[in-house]
């Protein structure tokens, strides 16, 4: 298992390197630069500013300096738009925010979604099944950009229960709405996937055998049926989880959380090259780590997969 993890990690390095190089040049293709502004800087001042950030160097020199700083100093460079900060500062300030509400959103999705799916499957075509199906349809027609304003109108303006946005150090009142608005549509999907997966598992021969042996229904469910039911949920949730913890641009902007989704969009508009690159690297590393974690989770759950991991 360790060897497998190590091999995967080594294999991903060239991918990330390619990604950096591609992003680096793609960013420069966009017209305008970080210091293009409504008030063009006089040439002498522009020259000073470009020199200060090393942007006067040829592109390949900039790329090598950039890579060198990342690999030797873990320094992702200065931000051009926020002049008192480095990319490292920006990620250090924004990532914990998105990680927090993304994590709670995932908890909300799993803790509610899986039981909902299980109940719907066990009580197929009952009232609860219809409630679940109805909820799934509801969450599809109310995507987060519709749901979030509705929640603010209800809980902030009408009832005055929750603040309409902000973060305030991550107090729970500030986390609730972003986490729920972000999670709702995934919650419905998780419930649906759990339902159909459990139905399939319950129809399989080994469950019939377990029942024939006279095992109590509770043991059958928890010991035998639930684990294989969760495999499709896990593979569904892994990219979703990366998306959740790296911040939905919409949620960050709408709730003004200060998360990195906001930084990503701001950096694109301001041509803050180093911030865009830093965030792209963060996203790719997280995607890789989460994919690896899913593969390992699969192995932990499914013995067939475990024996295949060498």
């Amino acid at each position, binding site marked *: 298992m360790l060897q497998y993890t190590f091999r995967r990690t080594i294999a991903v390095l060239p991918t990330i390197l390619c990604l950096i190089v591609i992003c680096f040049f793609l960013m420069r293709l966009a017209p305008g630069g970080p210091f293009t502004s409504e*008030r063009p800087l*006089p040439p002498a001042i522009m020259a*000073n500013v470009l020199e200060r950030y090393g942007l006067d160097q040829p592109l390949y020199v900039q790329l090598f300096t950039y890579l060198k700083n990342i690999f030797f100093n873990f320094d992702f460079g200065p931000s051009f738009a926020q002049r*008192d900060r480095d990319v490292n500062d920006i990620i250090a300030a924004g990532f914990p925010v998105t990680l927090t509400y993304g994590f709670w959103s995932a908890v909300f999705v799993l803790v509610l979604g899986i039981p909902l799916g299980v109940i719907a499957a066990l009580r197929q075509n009952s009232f609860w099944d219809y409630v679940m199906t109805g909820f799934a349809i509801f969450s599809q027609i109310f995507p987060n950009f519709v749901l979030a304003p509705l929640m603010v109108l209800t809980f902030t303006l009408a009832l*005055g229960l929750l603040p309409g*946005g902000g973060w305030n150090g991550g107090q729970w009142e500030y986390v609730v709405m972003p986490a729920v608005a972000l999670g709702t549509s995934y919650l419905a999907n998780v419930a649906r996937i759990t339902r159909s997966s459990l139905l399939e598992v319950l129809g399989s021969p080994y469950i019939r055998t377990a029942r024939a042996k006279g095992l109590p229904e509770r043991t059958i469910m928890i010991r035998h049926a639930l684990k294989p039911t969760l495999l499709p949920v896990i593979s569904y949730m892994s990219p979703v989880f990366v998306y959740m913890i790296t911040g939905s641009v919409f949620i960050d*902007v709408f709730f003004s959380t*200060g998360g990195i989704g906001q930084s990503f969009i701001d950096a694109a*508009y301001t041509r803050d090259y180093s911030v865009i690159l830093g965030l792209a690297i963060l996203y790719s590393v997280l995607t890789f780590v989460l994919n690896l974690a899913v593969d390992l989770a699969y192995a932990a759950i499914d013995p067939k997969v475990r024996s295949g991991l060498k």
Partner: protein
Amino acid sequence: MKTTRLTLAALIGSTMLTTAVFAADVPEGTTLADDQTYTYRVLDEYDSLDPQLLEGVDSSTVARDLFEGLYNLDAKGDIVPGVALSHEVSDDNLTYTFTLRDDAKWSDGKPVTAGDFVYAWKRAVAPETASPYAWYMELMSIDGAADIIAGEADPDTLAVKALDDTTLEVTLSKPLPYFADMVAHTTVFPAPKWAIEEHGQDWTRPGNMVSNGAYVLTEHVQKERLVRERSDTYWDNDNTVIEKVVALVIGDENQALTRYKAGELDKTDIPAGQYPNLKEELPDEAYAVPRLCNYYFSFNLSDQGPEAFKDERVRKALALAIDRDVIVDAVLKGGQFPAYNFTPAATNGFEMPDIDYADMTQAERDQMAMDLMNEAGYGKGGEPLEFSYLYNTSESHKQIAIVATQMWKQKLGAQVTLDNQEWKVFLENRGNQNYDMARGAWCGDYNEASTFLDLLASSSGYNDAKYSNDRVDELLTEAKSSHDTTPLYTEIEQILAEDMPVIPVYHYSVNMLLKDDLKGWPMENVMQKMYSKDFYKVAE
């Protein structure tokens, strides 16, 4: 007013500012609220909190609370003493000597000295600081600034000297009548050398920052909030009322409005077009006040521009055919002012010039527009006029573009293609004259007409129209050292109305919501430069 005061100052060679009002001017008998926290919305994260580096409007608002320059601005936008009590001007109008108060202190207790200004000003021009606002020092005509920025001289050669701890001497390269007004700007605020040397770029973080203003920085969460609290080392702390100022970053203006209504904010901006409704809903809280900015359409007069625009009759016809009242009253609906000249009427010391077409009725303008168009051989009878109009993506720019092109089409038969581009792409194309006609807007850097009119000087880096008129250049140069600028500016505006290198459309107003328990807002300060120390909250 201003001209008079400065002329007098020049005559007697010195000026003492009237020690009128500093800090919150609370009328007798007012019951103050228990909670003196002022919370407001900002659109975006600050570009910097370093006075010499920052460029943004919101950043300067923070800097004016945290730091204090030689002079501050009062509610009308006139200078009042800050760290400096007064100044004297030499007979040749080139040397300014400021006398500083001796009780001004930094937040760590050190006295604020003339040396702190010298350090800051040299820092602002030094190439290694790479301040994007270094041009301001050049604009102030401080002797040596241009050469230092260009890397041709050492920053120490800047003509600013501390004669002793409370005397600062500045020498200009040429007389500048409004120099004293310019020292209220953030770029020329003092800087704490010892804190900058100790912490490097991190000196602007809470805990590291040493500042000399009415407030100190206590919390800064990027893209979320910035908190400043009253400073007990500030020389006029006794008169500060607001204890704590909280700025919340809220990108979505409608969301900001919701949070204002939920009581989370004391001040926010009104989203475009919503002013009339909000004025009805919240009559005591919705305000529309003039702001020193203009909005115009810029022709491309360079060789890359359309042939038709080389004909001033075509340019005038297009300018005349726009019904500005429709744009202001039906599209923007926020108390903006129809514009027939470039400089906003609210500019200090600026007298509105007589512009012929400003006094006509719209029907007369339309008739004149059609005649001019026919004369030039375009329009309904002749060759159809075709061009594209470039603007940056935004709902209100789009609405204005649609209305204007519709007017040109109906009245003059012009076929206009709309071309909208993302901000930086737009700037790149407009700056390289890669357009036919483009949207333009400008906000004054200081409260004097040249901040607008200089844009149309042939040498200006902001002259995207590539307009060039020798007489205008001459008049602009003359205005720099003149004490009676009115005839000069009037002539410039009249030439512009004839040449019409840009079409003035409207002058801005600020649309905002302000809770009615917050008092002391400088409604008459058209630069929208305010100080939280001047505010107070009354008990409801």
